[in-house]
């Protein structure tokens, strides 16, 4: 099933490149392959970053809560 999903993703991304596209305007050659790779991994990269940020925020929240608890105890 996973294999099938990967193949579908690849087909969808490739189709995207050749249908809804416009020329790149940067003076740097971005490279179609480099764009394709980013699009293929967009979900994973975005998901991983969102999860990491959420975990970081959670840690921060817990740390703040613990800290404020300690402050109250010592007061």
């Amino acid at each position: 099933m996973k294999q099938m999903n990967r193949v579908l993703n690849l087909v969808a991304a490739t189709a995207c490149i050749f249908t809804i596209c416009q020329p790149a305007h940067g003076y740097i050659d971005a490279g179609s392959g480099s764009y394709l790779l980013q699009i293929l991994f967009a979900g994973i990269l975005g998901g991983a970053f969102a999860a990491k940020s959420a975990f970081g925020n959670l840690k921060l929240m817990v740390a703040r809560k613990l800290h404020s608890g300690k402050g109250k105890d010592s007061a």
Partner: protein
Amino acid sequence: MSDNQRLGSSFRDPSGFIYQKDGCLLRQINPSYFPTFTSLKSSGLLDDLIRANLVVPFEEVDLTLAHSTEAAAVIKPEKVALISYPYEWSFSQYRAAALATLQIQRRAIEKDMVLKDASAYNIQFHNGNPVLIDTLSFEPYTPGKPWVAYRQFCQHFLAPLVLMSHVDVRLSRLMASFIDGIPLDMASTICKPMTRFNAGVGMHLHLHAKLQAKAAHEERRATPQGAFGKNALLGLVDSLNGLIEKLSWKPEGTEWANYYNETNYSESSMGEKHRLVQDFLDLVTPLPEMVWDLGANNGEFSALASKRGIQTVAWDIDPAAVEKNYLMRKGDTKMLPLIQDLTNPSPAIGWANQERESLIQRGPVDVVMALALIHHLAIGNNVPLSDISQFLSRIGKWLIIEFVPKEDSQTQKLLAAKEDVFPHYHRDAFELAFHNAFEIIRKVDISGTQRTLYLLKNRSH
């Protein structure tokens, strides 16, 4: 360089360019980039990056200093003491430059901007920090658009660092052969056996190379829209950052890494040499602004100059010695350790041989130090003494040079494995060979050794 001339390396970006006027380096901003430049300033991004030592500070100057009438603005960046190139950086310097680029990109995204190019040549070491010198490298963030400079980042930073870390640290020299970074297919072929099970390298290098090859067969270059969100962009930076932070290289087993432990100097002779070098530096007039220490090893003698507040570049052939120097003296803002093979110095490369300057083009400097070096050039590399004199006279106004005679144990080591075809390698011949270009100001035998230290003044400066 003549006045009001655009720099040979500043031609790709239509946003503006660098030129020299009245002895100052200036950057012209063209009308097409002016709205972006205004947003860059008003967003506070540039100020943030300058405060964080990630972008070179600059001031806006009067339009009368513009290179051409079409200028929308002119800025004067703080002067970088020496422009260095990626193929001259040690592993940790290279990694620091890559991480600085990613940090800039992350901060830019947070302000709705992105780096539109990620060239390693845009990073320079300024007061010890890797900073972006191309203030025009930003563009507004376009929702859904992948990172336009991702390919360039991988070719300029990721591929060299992976090769240096996993294969051989000397492979950074490939950057001198490929002006736009190491081709990913080549890097992938070289490092595949060592990185087969590394997921990050697998994605950013091996798969990237494969997709590039596939796409190269297609005629149209295209930008897919609406497929790459801001989280994905930040995730890409995070992924590259994690991968590069994990890359490492330990300097050991190279020729100079333990040089000072194996030297034939006694403690007192070494102390005397230290004192003499300092005395000679004090005799140089006017006060030197820049010293190049050639064959500097881990920078022990270079530090005598940098501690006096003189900008000092410690060149050495050995990546391990340069790495040690960089890591040991990170707080020394006047010290810049760099890799340089004097038997094959950095050439002028790029378009019209004018994009990246050769070693000689970056001189002459106030003082060149060549301590315990001459026997390596004359006997190790068969360079005639007169040729060494001519080369040094092109790069230095003053010269502190140590003559190491044939009887010295270090020279004997060089001669052990080769025929002695150097009948003219002796002190008198040395003085004669250097006489045409240099005047002897001081000459002192270093006690406890057979060596002599000279302070020479270039006759043509």
